[in-house]
């Protein structure tokens, strides 16, 4: 008895009750497609979060002073004798291509806490940075309207500013901000550019931003010798670790650090932030996958149920087949194949449904299919057919012909 023959018997068996076959197949199809779609959704949402973080700047390493909490030099009371503040000299040293070949550029940042006004409107920027033009690229910030300030502006200490969208809406409703003079902490700054929208990273509004030449900010707002941080851009994400090492070497030399465990500066990089967020979003993906897996399991139990009913219903047929010489194996294989075809067809439909369903946005998140999830879901569905079909099949095969024939 060839396997094709048995497959033909199995298909004939499935054909004889089309509605039931369709419903069972749908159970598996829904399970498989929900696994694919939900995993794609989880993957898509984690990619979206990552993209949001990348927008706020990648390849960048931020150096901060360890002399006291935030606010840098202002916490002068906690200043320890041995520690030095970050200086413009540090930034210049970090920009040296011979000692730091993997660093593209570095920019010192002086931060001010101040409120800006224009007419009667006022806004307190989340970030008010005095820096170098290199900062824009290092922090992945680009100007969409107007211009950047230049190194010349820094040298001359011109009071010009590039502002974010939140500041634009707060201060300049109905006015073109370019060329307007706003006052920040009483000091006039001419707006020369507006940054591209960054959105929020969940902690901070990336658009509540004012960026001005370092010298201008230091002169009028923060004073000298009070750098908040130095933003360093590595040449690429790949050499970020090398860049980190170079930073430590240069900074240790600049600051005469004797014990590397007791540095007077610290570094933060975006890569570690990305790693944290992606691990939390992978928890979400796993959770969604588990929920979908349960529906796949329910589909599998549906197959068992249907196959058990089928075996009972066809007891007499099994009896006839046995009476005319069907070996146990043939009966077993026939029912097993029936169950496998159900799950195979269901799995294929589920994959198609999953691929189609993943094209639609769910609550604003574009699902991104994980290719392995397609194979996994399909493989699991076929396995489910074999596993959940084997009990009814062995029950059918072990029916005694005399009892099966008597069954009405």
């Amino acid at each position, binding site marked *: 008895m060839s396997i094709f*023959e048995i497959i033909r018997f199995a298909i*004939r068996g499935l054909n004889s009750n089309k509605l039931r076959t369709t419903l069972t197949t749908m159970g598996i199809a829904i399970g498989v497609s929900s696994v694919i779609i939900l995993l794609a959704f989880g993957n898509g949402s984690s990619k979206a979060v990552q993209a949001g973080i990348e927008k706020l700047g990648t390849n960048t390493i931020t150096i901060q002073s360890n002399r006291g909490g935030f606010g840098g030099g202002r916490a002068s009371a906690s200043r320890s004798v041995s520690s030095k503040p970050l200086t413009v000299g540090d930034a210049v040293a970090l920009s040296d291509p011979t000692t730091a070949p993997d660093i593209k550029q570095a920019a010192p940042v002086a931060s001010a806490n101040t409120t800006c006004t224009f007419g009667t409107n006022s806004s307190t920027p989340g970030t008010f940075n005095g820096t170098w033009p290199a900062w824009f690229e290092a922090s992945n910030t680009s100007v969409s309207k107007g211009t950047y300030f230049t190194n010349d502006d820094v040298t001359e200490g011109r009071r010009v500013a590039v502002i974010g969208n939140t500041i634009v809406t707060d201060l300049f409703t109905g006015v073109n901000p370019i060329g307007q003079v706003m006052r920040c902490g009483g000091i006039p700054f001419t707006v020369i550019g507006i940054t591209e929208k960054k959105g929020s990273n969940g902690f901070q509004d990336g658009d509540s931003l004012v960026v001005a030449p370092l010298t201008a900010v230091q002169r009028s707002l923060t004073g000298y010798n009070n750098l908040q941080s130095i933003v360093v851009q590595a040449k690429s994400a790949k050499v970020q670790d090398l860049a980190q090492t170079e930073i430590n070497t240069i900074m240790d030399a600049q600051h005469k650090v004797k014990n590397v465990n007791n540095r007077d500066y610290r570094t933060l990089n975006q890569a570690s932030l990305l790693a944290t967020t992606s691990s939390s979003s992978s928890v979400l993906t796993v959770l969604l996958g588990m929920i979908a897996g349960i529906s796949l399991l329910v589909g599998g139990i549906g197959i068992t149920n249907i196959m058990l009913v089928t075996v009972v219903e066809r007891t007499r047929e099994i009896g006839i087949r046995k*009476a005319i*010489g069907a*070996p*146990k194996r043939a009966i077993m294989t026939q029912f097993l194949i029936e169950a496998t075809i159900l799950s195979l067809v269901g799995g294929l439909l589920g994959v198609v449904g999953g691929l189609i369903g993943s094209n639609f946005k769910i609550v604003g998140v574009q699902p991104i299919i994980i290719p392995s999830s397609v194979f996994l879901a399909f493989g699991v569905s076929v396995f489910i057919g074999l596993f959940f079909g084997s009990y009814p099949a062995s029950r059918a095969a072990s029916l005694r012909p005399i009892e099966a024939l008597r069954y009405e």
Partner: protein
Amino acid sequence: MHPVIDVQGAVKQYGSGDAAIFALDGVDLRIDSGEYVAIMGPSGSGKSTLMNIMGALDNMTAGKYFLDGIEIDTLDENALAVVRGRKIGFIFQSFNLIARTTALANVELPLAYQGIKGKERRARAMAALKVVGLEDRVSHEPTELSGGQQQRVAVARALSTRPALLLADEPTGALDSKSTHDLLDLFDQINAAGRTVVVITHEDDVAARAKRIVRMRDGKIISDTVNKK
């Protein structure tokens, strides 16, 4: 030359102790090749139990059974399937064709289970259908055939494997008199061709066609006579 059927001291017991019922209570029966035997008896006489045992569908509580020289009781499930497929052709009262399956496919089925393939299988099935006079109904499904035609498909199915024994259990029970007559003519013809035929029946006119009549009552054979036509 060994007999086709050799039942020795067959006992079939249901229940135990005081509630024990003996469906067969020590039956000895020998049927030689080429015989045409009718087994008769009222319901409850044990004739169906005997038929199930002869057909290797059921096992005995005690006794021995040789079918075409093979001791059936010693066989495992797989060997039994082979014996049922090759040695016995069954014909049932309710035809027992596989539903939604053409006459040809039904006749091919036991051959398929024996592993006979393609052209040979088709040719043998067609030949068997020709013997029963249904060569023009091969692609009809059971529901499209009359009772008499269905039973003839069942006969063709039983003949297709060229069994040592054709075993019919009340084959005319669901047929009208015309179909009954046709079927019995067919049995005569099959037996005349040399095949052993055993018919279980409670109808006298069916038994009258056989060459030998075995009568049963309460699990025992009460008479075993040659039928003088």
